């Protein structure tokens, strides 16, 4: 995917994921309320996200092409690829070097590993 998403676009995407499928007119109203956006602004951003393959606007109804979970999964994969050369242990090491893992965190990670095995 390797497409950059800014904070503004992400906020907008979150809003759609929360409410989809949503009529584009309703989306415009919602954005005017929350972000103080004009109709054209909303459509501009929506078009950008559609072009990036996140959503689709068919007959005035906006729906997700990629779910929120799928999106973040891809995002995190990309991140680990980029920052740690795809090495999960390197990522974990980096993550834990600054932040203490709680007992609950360790338990969950162990469960994940068990599942895979």
């Amino acid at each position, binding site marked *: 995917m390797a497409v950059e998403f*800014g*904070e*503004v676009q992400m906020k907008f995407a979150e809003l759609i994921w929360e409410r989809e499928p949503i009529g584009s007119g309703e989306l415009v109203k919602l954005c005017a309320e929350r*972000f*103080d*956006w*004009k109709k054209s*602004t909303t459509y*501009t*951003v929506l078009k950008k996200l559609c072009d990036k393959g996140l959503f689709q606007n068919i007959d005035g109804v906006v729906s997700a092409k990629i779910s929120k979970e799928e999106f973040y999964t891809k995002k995190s994969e990309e991140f680990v690829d980029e920052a740690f050369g795809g090495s999960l242990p390197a990522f974990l090491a980096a993550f834990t070097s600054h932040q203490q893992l709680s007992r609950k965190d360790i338990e969950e990670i162990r469960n994940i590993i068990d599942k895979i095995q």
Partner: protein
Amino acid sequence: MGLIFGKVLEMSFASVLLIVAVSLLRIPLKKAPKWFMGVLWTIVALRLLVPVQIQSGIGFMPDFGNMIESAFGKENTNNVATYVSEDTLAPATGVLEDIASGDAAPVETQNVAAKSAGSFVYLVVLWIIGMLMAFGYASYSYISIRLKTRISIRYRSSERVYVCDEIDTPFIFGLIKPAIYIPSGLDHETIVNVLAHERVHLKRKDHLRKQLGFLILTIHWFNPFVWLAYVLFCRDIELACDERVISRMSVDEKKSYAESLLSCSTKKRRMMVYPVAFGEVAVGTRIKGIFNYRKPSFYLLLMLAITTGVLTTCSFTRAADRVVVTPYSVSYVKEVEEVGNASSSNTQSVTIKGITYVGEDFDADEKKSDVEVKVKVEEPSQVRTRIEDIRCQENTVIESHQESQSEPEASAEVKKPEEDRSEEKKEETKKESTTVDVKKGKTHVHVSTDDLKKIESIAPVSEVVSATEDFATDVATETVDTVVGEVFDEGGVVDTAFGITSETLGLVDSILGW
């Protein structure tokens, strides 16, 4: 428009020295508080916007207005020519000739003037095109940023702070209702520093200052020194803003601030017109500045105040005209008028106590009224107009002929009172009448004794350049009836001649302490 352009040129020329001075001052003032540079740039801005030059003895700037005028011909011919060239429907040459004859000026000189005026018009058009281009660029820049910043979300609940995806450096946008825009993806610490910086910009009204700076640049786009000034001014704005932000910061906070500056400095250097950005200019210098900050001492501030005063006075004044007044006898002036140009073949000169007295002997039979005295008088133009004022009050005749291109105001024929003056004229020429005779910038004025006293009071005669030896005795014995004086401007712009009587010369004499 030509008139405005003339003024702009005048201001542009007058500002060059000031800009150079201020730019050089930046070097020794490196450690001085940065807000002071703002004061200096304000003087520059005023110099570039206010078309006033006060004449004064302490000023050293030349009179750029006159220089420009003489380079492009007189202002009035310019206007005429501009009018002609703009009026495309009328056959240009015909109109030109009409105007020329109406002006009672020789057509040849008018044509020469029209030629230089033509090149002036060309420059004016070029100037306007440049301004339009700068304006167009600003509009383009405004619209593109406006489009980008529309897609933004309010940062938390902060007033007028917006996060925007499309920008890569924080800035302030908007003149009346300015808002801070920050690029998305900044960490919390950076945002805190950025907001501290931008809020100081808003407090200092830097967004307005920068806009005004760009407006001045638009007007003076042809002047490379103004470009230099604008670039340095933008830097100094940032430095001054940083200075204020960090003045109350601890070392750790300063470190964090410097890091934020670095992280916001974009690799691409674009000339942004509208935004007042955070990490836009001279990040290296600014980071150094952050750790060099010191509270200014009293003496430094005093020194800065003096610098400001000196720069302001010098840039807004120009050197007073140095003028030489030469009184001649009436007969001499008549002779000059007849011959056209006086030859100084019969000049006699005597030097007494370091002062050279030059006398001109036209006729041995004539009385010893053929004398020449040169005295210095300040401000020829003022003298002339004031002389005319006096004459009008006195209900005497001011008669003037305009020949070739000369001061337009002198060409007006003023008659007071409205009487039949044809018979009186000859007598009055000798005794009381005033003749403003404009000849290629030279004005001869014959005035009465009383009037000359008044002229004396408005235009102090400061120095005697020359006179005949006989002259002094003439004055003493009152053998001189009437003497006509001539004022020479060193620049040769306005010359005035007075007709003065022996009585007045006595006055001159006493003032000068002969």
